[in-house]
């Protein structure tokens, strides 16, 4: 079990309560659960990393329990009861400094400190759809929901949010525009937050600017957008809707850059890889798909027999790509060595002055790399 979980690079939570680990390099999927005690109220709502080094996966279920799964040991190490099923499903889970932050649909945001039973509670309104943590400032979280605009909270000041968004102006019929925030994400290296709504809008908010209304608004499709993720390079965002349409939108002008094809069911979970141009999606059609963002092609497709609720990508490279890269580097070095032998013979015959310079270089820097430097100098 331990070796199986150590290989997995993608973690998926399903509606049947099973945590699935997928190893894309080995093209295998593993179920991590106790088959005897499966039930629908253990349906996985949220997945999150338990720590910085991504050795623990936090699994939040419908019945209010948060289980900790250790990727190194391959077993569930801890179970905590963080609320009851009457309070609603989990909509977000995060970890700061040994404290667990959970948010449920009824708007109750709680910070569970390790060791003590009392919790810091924040009421984030009703009908919260999603809660996300700021990756750069760990004590800031954002919440949003149906008729509940984007609010950014600082956990050290739980009374009022540090940023409350304002709804856009009335439309051309002078009617109030309904708002329904489905998912949000903090843009790194800035204060901005990008949200996707159930009314197929993508909005960017800037708390630093004096206006509380969205700074940018873009539309995509006709169906509610359910998930959103930011790729490694800036200025774009990947969104998915209930019809299985995935699009990459450009945040500079708000135009659609391209669509990713293949999904047949609604997108429930979407995550971009932190460094590679890859995006993993899971949805109601029971498949996990990994697309490449550069050429928008499907790289991997894995059939996992239950409907999937959430996906979690690890930051480590997929092993295939890793080994390929090292192979290329070695070949380059060898080629450099052979060519440099030819250069050596040539230089010795032609120029004595250049030879002296190269000899000095050789003396100073040992190893193969110096030969590549030598070639550049000669040229």
């Amino acid at each position, binding site marked *: 079990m331990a070796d199986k979980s150590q290989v997995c690079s993608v973690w998926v939570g399903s*509606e*049947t309560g*099973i945590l699935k680990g997928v190893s894309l390099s080995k093209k295998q999927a593993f*179920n991590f659960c106790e*088959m005897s005690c*499966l*039930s*629908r109220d253990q349906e996985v709502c949220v997945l999150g990393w338990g720590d910085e080094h991504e050795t623990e996966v936090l699994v939040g279920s419908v019945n209010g329990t948060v289980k900790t799964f250790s990727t190194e040991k391959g077993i569930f190490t801890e179970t905590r009861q963080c609320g009851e099923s009457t309070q609603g499903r989990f909509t977000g889970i995060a970890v700061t400094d040994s404290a667990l932050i959970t948010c449920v649909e009824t708007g109750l945001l709680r910070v569970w400190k390790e060791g003590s039973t009392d919790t810091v509670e924040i009421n984030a309104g009703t009908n919260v759809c999603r809660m996300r943590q700021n990756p750069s400032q760990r004590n800031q979280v954002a919440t949003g929901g149906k008729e509940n605009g984007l609010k950014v909270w600082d956990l050290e000041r739980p009374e009022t949010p540090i940023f409350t968004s304002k709804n856009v102006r009335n439309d051309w019929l002078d009617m109030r525009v309904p708002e329904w925030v489905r998912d949000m994400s903090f843009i790194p290296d800035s204060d901005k937050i990008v949200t996707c709504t*159930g009314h197929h809008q993508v909005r960017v908010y800037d708390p630093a600017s004096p206006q509380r209304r969205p700074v940018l608004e873009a539309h995509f499709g006709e*169906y*509610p957008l*359910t998930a959103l993720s930011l790729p490694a390079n800036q200025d774009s965002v990947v969104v998915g809707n*209930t*019809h*299985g349409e995935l699009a990459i939108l450009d945040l500079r002008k708000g135009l659609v850059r391209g669509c990713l*094809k293949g999904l*047949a*069911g*609604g997108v*429930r979970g979407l995550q971009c890889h932190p460094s590679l141009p890859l995006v993993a999606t899971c949805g*109601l*059609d*029971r498949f996990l798909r990994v697309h490449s963002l550069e050429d928008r092609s499907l790289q991997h497709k894995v*059939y996992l*027999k*239950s*409907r999937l609720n959430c996906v979690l990508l690890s930051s480590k490279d997929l092993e295939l790509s890793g080994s390929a890269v090292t192979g290329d580097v070695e070949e380059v070095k060898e080629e450099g060595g052979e060519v440099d032998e030819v250069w050596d013979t040539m230089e010795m015959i032609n120029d004595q002055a250049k030879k002296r310079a190269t000899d000095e270089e050789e003396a100073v820097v040992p190893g193969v790399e110096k030969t590549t430097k030598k070639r550049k100098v000669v040229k």
Partner: protein
Amino acid sequence: MDVVEEHDIQDKPTKKKTKKPKKQPKPPHENGNDSMIEKTEPEHVDAPAEFSFPPTFSVSEIKNKQRRHLMFMKLKQEKRKKKKKERDALGDKAPPKEVPKTIENQRVYDETTVNPEDEEVAFDEGTDEFSAYFNRLTNPKVLITTSDRPRGRTVRFCNQLATVIPDAHVYYRRGLALKKVIPQCIARGFTYLMVINEDRKVPNGMVLCHLPDGPTAHFKVSSVRLRKEMKRRGKDPTEHSPEVILNNFTTRLGHSMGRLFAALFPHDPQFVGRQVATFHNQRDFIFFRFHRYIFKNEKRVGIQELGPRFTLKLRSLQKGTFDSKFGEYEWVLKVSSVLFLIYYQIHVKCCTSKRYAISP
């Protein structure tokens, strides 16, 4: 001389049609000259051989379509006989018979095909929205309605469907919104809502919604044949619950659809009624037929088709009750790839036909 020879060659196909013995007397009959008799004699000798065509002759050079067809049939028969002889001669050492390629056996294996022993799928199905029906906790009760202001054909189709499905009630739509109809149906204990959509006086769509919180399937309906249009049909169906046959619902999506159809009918069929409803899935089209059967003896069965017949094609399967705007879809038919294939095939055909026109 040349004229005579060609005449003979051209006559030979027709001679094959008529009786063979006539061929031999014919050449001396046509050529009265003594000088010709010498030539006819070698032809006379050649006549029994029958195949003295010039070596470059092929069946496709005969201009007359009927004669060409006959020659080709003869050729094929000869080839088949020859092959059979060779096969029999080899006996046991003959290579095994080749299986012909069909669309069904050339298909790529679908990885979502359900394995009957799969625990996870069994658990999923044991606790999904249909589990109440399959655990015998509820009995089906179907509400059949149409889109607004239906025309005669659709109304008759709905009435016939109500006779086929036990405990089905037909209600006139009167322009009501489905989202408001659904809570009322749930309150009155209905388990299914079936809406037949009509376009240009013909039913062309169906929305089948499983009621408490179940999936909603949207189908395209085609080839509807009402009872009047059925040939050799039996008398009207009785009130007995029919048996249900579900064919080829093998993939995971197929399983969901199969359960959707099965839950329309009561759990226990009344075999006294000898009626059977068949849902046959082939190439993503679901064919519905309703028959009455009778066993003549142990091996022979007679069937009579009653009832309406129609074909369905799934367009989308939505999780939850009918909500086309904000609902989450489990499966959506994406038409773009199909259209691309069609256009590509047309494009290829045009290109190839142009090539044939240009070359002399």
